């Protein structure tokens, strides 16, 4: 026995098994994730839902009442992978920041002393550890300490979210700030749950 949901697809009501519902919802959400423009997203999703509705009604015919996981999988096979539909090469999460010119800041979130290496790493697109190793090498040869001190004094700290985005070369706009907070939230959540499991 399975639980069913009733869904409205293209102004028609379907009963759908819960596993089939989850699969379909996940599929539509993934397509939605590619479009930031609300109007465009609604247009495309509505058209796709309409077509899925048509395919369901063809598949169900007059005798069957419930849409199953097999139906949903078959229909997704016909509609195609979200990446193909949207013509995108990769999942959107990989590059959801639009980029702009980078600026040099000290990174207060990635610091051992003054955040100079963290900021330099973000500016140069290098791993912080590499920057730190380079600095230690410079220290051994003498001038590193002075360079670090000067940078610490001269380079401003990235205090605001906008500055932190600039530091990573991301354009400051509302959607990026939204993404930034979502990422921050996720990382806080992760570190919290890690602490809990310890």
């Amino acid at each position, binding site marked *: 026995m399975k639980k069913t949901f009733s869904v409205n697809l293209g*102004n028609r009501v379907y009963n759908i098994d819960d596993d089939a519902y989850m699969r379909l919802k996940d599929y539509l959400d993934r397509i939605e994730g590619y479009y930031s423009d609300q109007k465009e997203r609604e247009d495309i999703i509505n*058209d796709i839902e309409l077509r899925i509705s048509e395919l369901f009604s*063809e598949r169900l015919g007059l005798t069957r009442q419930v849409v199953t996981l097999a139906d949903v999988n078959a229909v997704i096979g016909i509609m195609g992978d979200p990446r193909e539909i949207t013509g995108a090469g990769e999942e959107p999460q990989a590059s959801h920041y639009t980029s702009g010119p980078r600026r040099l800041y000290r990174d207060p979130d990635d610091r051992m002393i003054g955040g100079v290496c963290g900021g330099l790493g973000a500016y140069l697109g290098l791993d912080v550890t590499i920057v730190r190793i380079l600095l230690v090498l410079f220290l051994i040869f003498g001038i590193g300490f002075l360079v670090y001190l000067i940078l610490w004094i001269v380079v401003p700290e990235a205090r605001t979210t906008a500055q932190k985005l600039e530091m990573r070369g991301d354009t400051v706009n509302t959607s990026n700030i939204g993404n930034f907070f979502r990422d921050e939230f996720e990382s806080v959540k992760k570190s919290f749950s890690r602490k809990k499991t310890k």
Partner: protein
Amino acid sequence: MDFENVKAQMRKGVLEFCILSILSKGDAYATDILNRLKESELIVVEGTLYPLLSRQKNAGLLSYRWEESTQGPPRKYYALTEQGKEVLVELEASWKGLIDAVESIINKHPNQ
């Protein structure tokens, strides 16, 4: 070089042209358009059509109206706008130019 991407880009450009072409012969709803594109094997998965339709509609090339259907959900019939017709004429001209250009290059190569 990623040739899959080249092929996909080529197909996408041609697809937009073909959608306008199909609609120039009469209004059609998405599934009509799909069936014709599938007959000529221009489209592999159906989903690729919808972003194109939405783009062309937002660019003012297409308009649509709703019609009830006796079987299944109501249908969204697409039609070419005046602007769409103008764009189609331009695309037809550039398509013919492209074919000639490509043919002449393919046929000349590599003997000359």
